[in-house]
């Protein structure tokens, strides 16, 4: 009886795992095409939010083919989760930080960058009077809050250290992984010495006037450089070029819409981001929203040199699909 129970349990587990696989393989086989897109929370994802709210990808696809496409938008918490979703075939498209996207390409998750999404300002603020440069932090016990170890913010910190002539990993043991709002609260209450964050928290901390900014970080990676990028599964690019083109067109139209209707976009997203319309508009105007990447390959080279990734892509073309402009 016991052996039979164990056998049944094993069999049901096998069937369950098999079922997952079968589900994955059926994702885009129906009459009506479907597209699963993952995005994350924050101002930097605004073009994706605009495309979602206005149905721009669906519109571009219908205009090109006369057919409907069902687009499902899924909000996720990290680039690592999106990488897993694309590798499993459950997601076709994802928006994430440039650093996890580079890691995903190098690890052969099965995607490439199909667009740049945004560039934002980053800052390293301190509440300590004796800290005025990165050199003052090296060897100290001052803690630096940033969103995650291995995140784009961590890479930017390492790059700023490297450009200051220091070891890029010199502050690794000073890092505390905290979400942006928690990091800002900890900086304000004095629980941590420094906070490395991105827009809009950068502006909130600057406007408080209580902190000193170590400008090596904002110089190392500016708002013109690629911060958030869109990645698409190679299977989508190779097997369904019409849908891939509609995706690129939809995001580009969203960026053009932002250029001409920034006030309206601020009204659309201010509630999601928890800002007033005026603040949202100010934050949006300070970001850069273009489809062209900037310094993406330079970032990949730095990540390889500093040991964040094991292998270096041979060229910019290894990171992006052939329709993507930039460097």
């Amino acid at each position, binding site marked *: 009886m016991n052996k039979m129970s164990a056998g049944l*349990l094993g069999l049901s587990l*096998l069937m369950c*795992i098999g079922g997952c696989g079968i589900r994955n393989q059926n994702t885009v086989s129906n009459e009506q095409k479907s597209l699963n897109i993952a995005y994350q929370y924050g101002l930097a994802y605004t073009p994706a939010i605009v495309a979602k709210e206005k149905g721009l990808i669906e519109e571009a696809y219908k205009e090109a083919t006369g057919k409907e496409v069902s687009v499902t938008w899924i909000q996720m918490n990290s*680039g*690592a989760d999106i990488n897993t979703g694309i590798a*499993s075939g459950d997601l076709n498209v994802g928006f994430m930080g440039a650093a996890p996207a580079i890691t995903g390409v190098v690890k052969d998750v099965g995607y490439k960058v199909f667009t740049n999404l945004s560039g934002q300002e980053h800052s390293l603020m301190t509440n300590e009077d004796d800290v005025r440069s990165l050199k003052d932090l090296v060897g100290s016990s001052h803690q630096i809050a940033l969103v995650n*170890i291995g995140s784009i913010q961590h890479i930017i910190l390492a790059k700023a250290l490297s450009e200051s002539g220091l070891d890029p990993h010199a502050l690794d043991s000073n890092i505390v*992984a905290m979400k942006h709002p928690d990091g800002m609260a*900890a900086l304000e209450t004095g629980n941590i010495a420094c906070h490395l964050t991105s827009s809009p928290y950068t502006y909130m901390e600057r406007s408080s006037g209580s902190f000193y900014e170590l400008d090596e970080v904002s110089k190392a990676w500016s708002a013109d450089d690629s911060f958030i990028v869109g990645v698409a599964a190679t299977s989508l690019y190779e097997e369904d070029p019409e849908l891939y083109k509609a995706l690129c067109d939809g995001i580009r139209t969203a960026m053009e819409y932002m250029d001409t209707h920034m006030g309206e976009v601020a009204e659309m997203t201010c509630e999601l981001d928890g800002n007033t319309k005026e603040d949202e508009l100010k934050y949006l105007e300070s970001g850069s929203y273009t489809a062209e990447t900037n310094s993406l390959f330079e970032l990949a080279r730095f990540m390889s040199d500093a040991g964040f990734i094991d292998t270096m892509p041979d060229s910019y073309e290894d990171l992006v699909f052939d329709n993507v402009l930039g460097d």
Partner: protein
Amino acid sequence: MRKKEKKGFWIQIVFIALMLVVWETAARLRLFGPRSEIIFPPLEAIGRAFVLNFAKGYGGVSLWRYIGNSMKLLGEGLLIGIILALILSGACMVSVSFRRIYSLVIAVMDLLPGVAMLPVVIIIFGISPGVIVFLVVHSVLWPMSRNVLDGFLAVPRIYVEAGKNIGLRGISLLLGVYLPASVTYVISGLKVGWARAWRGLISAEMIFGIASCPGIGLYINQMRVNLNNAEMYATLLVIIIIGLIVQYGILVPIENRTVKKWGMSR
């Protein structure tokens, strides 16, 4: 080993072997999408990663250091949680008013996930490993208190009266009558508390990673971010092994030498 126990042991071994076969089959058939090998690696890759975790680690830091930090924080949290649970549950037997208040506190606090309290805990304790210790205490204190209190309340009245007749009062009554009579509940509370504390520790470390005091949860997070999924699964295996060592190496022998030996439990 008795014949019945031997049979049970072999059934467990067969079950584990079956699970490994299911895993390997799923990995080889690439059931999880076009890049199945990345998110669902075969056993050989996990085995290799298991060795590499200890030999090489991440950024030159071996997994041993992560385990050491986690176990230190866990030990501190467990000790504080167990002592507090015994003291506070004991106080409940001294004062009825305190028991009513503490029962309410247990009912409320046991519902709150530790990680949800993280922002408040950081404001109170600052950024330090103390935050993790607090979350471990939070994980162990309430279920342990609930069990110990239930045990104290289940002690037959006649035992208490007998203790009082031989002159036991207050702490001596608690240590001489209540505690020995409710050992089954205390050990059951220990088992639940340990499991909750272990899970709470890993969750907290995954969300709140202090690089100067890196724990196993942070290691898992680093592996996830870098798409080193074989290393991540190998670390989950380490978590299971540590859990089994504590379960069968510490808790079961305690149970065998106390409640089972005394005939209080089968």
